[in-house]
């Protein structure tokens, strides 16, 4: 898959949404093994990061931060990379964008996609009329 295809898959597929879990793309890519199933279920915390909301609740922010922190703790860098590569800044709130970047920023040297995500988030924040460079202080 190209990066665009992967992003589209991630965005449309709702891998984290059990109601839409029958999505073909995910089934084809991940449902082959029990391990993949476990992983899919274990990523449900990511749903708020793709919910299209302009606001994120503190519960949603904490869920995503907690999930990413746990993946970092397990050194699941390829999976984090994949999450970041597929992350759509425009589909969630500015606070969620910043939470994702800052939580994973501590291991940025291990994440190629982190460096690609920063300008995408910056572009999105600018598109919302926000002072992106100020919001991203410490990350640029």
């Amino acid at each position, binding site marked *: 898959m190209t990066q665009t295809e992967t992003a589209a898959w991630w965005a449309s597929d709702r891998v984290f949404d059990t109601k839409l879990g029958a999505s073909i793309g995910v089934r084809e890519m991940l449902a082959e093994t029990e391990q993949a199933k476990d992983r899919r279920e274990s990523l449900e915390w990511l749903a708020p990061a793709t919910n299209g909301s302009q606001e994120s609740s503190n519960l949603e922010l904490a869920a995503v931060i907690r999930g990413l922190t746990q993946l*970092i703790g397990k050194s699941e860098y390829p999976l984090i990379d994949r999450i970041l590569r597929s992350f759509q800044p425009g589909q969630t709130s500015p606070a969620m964008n*910043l939470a994702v970047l800052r939580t994973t*920023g501590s291991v940025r040297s291990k994440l190629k996609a982190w460096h690609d995500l920063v300008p995408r988030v910056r572009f999105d924040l600018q598109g919302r009329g926000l002072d992106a460079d100020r919001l991203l202080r410490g990350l640029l």
Partner: protein
Amino acid sequence: MNDPRDIPFENLPEVGVAIKRGDFGLHCGLLYRWGDEVRLLHLAFHHLLCDQPPDLSYLWAVVPEDELDVYNARAFAAWAKVVGEAGASIPYGFNMDGLVLDEQGQLLPSPVGRGLTCATFVLALFRCFQIKAPAAVETWPTREEDAVWKSSIIALLKARNADPEHIQALESETLQARFRPDEVIGSVSSSGWSFNYEQARELADAILVELDNPHG
């Protein structure tokens, strides 16, 4: 600084700091909003990370919005909640180099003798979340008068049966630059972050006056 008896903690928008005079000197922590609740996340002592509602013995202040905007503050408050929930077992220590963080700010299992104080814990929270440092830590001096404080902390660790290996490591290390609670809270709660030592000391002195006369 606000006295919660005049301006209740409930006025906190997202993130703030709190400081008080405790039994063993100054003590400080991070305030954050969690729904309708305001909570205080603080390193009370050796392996004693607390996440609880603040009591009225603290003075408090908001982290200025020009240093932590509303979006980052919201994310940071959620980060504080996650840290509090995780309940990391953080040793008490003086060595800022160790800070139980790696060079990228990730909390790590600490080497023996390394650890945080209540004040460096607040700094570490910002650093771990990739937030610009409130204080230019490299400008802090080593002060001889902190040797007395260091000795009292070590005595307290011994009295509480802390790991002898940890105590030995603390005793054997040279005196470190100490980031006092009033200096850290003065820096975090003021606009113009990356304060050097002299600037932070001025801010800290103002806090000491307020602590002695909270109703000003």
